[in-house]
């Protein structure tokens, strides 16, 4: 079956503009994660969705970052008023989460969106 897809693959924007990054998880995967990969900070967790709700937003770096998930499927990460330090690769991952089972379910990653803020 299809894996996790992300769009766009690359995005170049000007400082101060808003951007939207999209993630299509594997069909049936209830959990969805956003991570950011930057040269200075490595891989950082941003936000976690279980279904359409986000019980953990602790990794969002500022209130300029927001995310939503609709229909338990597609997720959009929005960055408002982009800054140069937002330049990074944004990775999305999805996994099955079986109630009552250990949370070791494998996270399947998408190819990421490379965001460049000029």
């Amino acid at each position: 079956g299809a894996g996790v897809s992300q769009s766009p693959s690359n995005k170049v924007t000007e400082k101060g503009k808003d951007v939207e990054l999209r993630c299509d998880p594997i069909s049936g995967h209830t959990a969805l994660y956003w991570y950011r990969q930057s040269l200075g900070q490595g891989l950082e967790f941003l936000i976690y969705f279980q279904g359409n709700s986000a019980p953990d937003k602790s990794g969002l770096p500022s209130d300029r970052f927001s995310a939503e998930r609709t229909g338990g499927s597609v997720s959009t990460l929005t960055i408002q008023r982009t800054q140069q330090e937002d330049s990074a690769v944004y990775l999305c991952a999805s996994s099955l989460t079986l109630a009552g089972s250990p949370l070791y379910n494998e996270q399947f990653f998408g190819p990421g969106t490379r965001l460049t803020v000029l």
Partner: protein
Amino acid sequence: AQTVTQSQPEMSVQEAETVTLSCTYDTSESDYYLFWYKQPPSRQMILVIRQEAYKQQNATENRFSVNFQKAAKSFSLKISDSQLGDAAMYFCAYRKSYGGSQGNLIFGKGTKLSVKP
């Protein structure tokens, strides 16, 4: 807070030889999961191997094996018979065990592995 440390920013190995990538972590939890991910230039993160902390036996997947030392909080990856396709960034990652919504991975900074023909 849990942390993961990879002390080798870069490693190099000759094709067909064996290489070991190091990883240490810090946690107060007794039950958790550890992973090694591979990231080639395509950016796609690929799970290489997984270890459950409650299991004493080291995980193996074909040419990949781990040396899991729970007391020392060490989790190294051994790649045997290295192949050119093994060249990539390798990330060690930690994940809490069952409980709550904290299923996110905590990653080390990565080790860039080069394979020489």
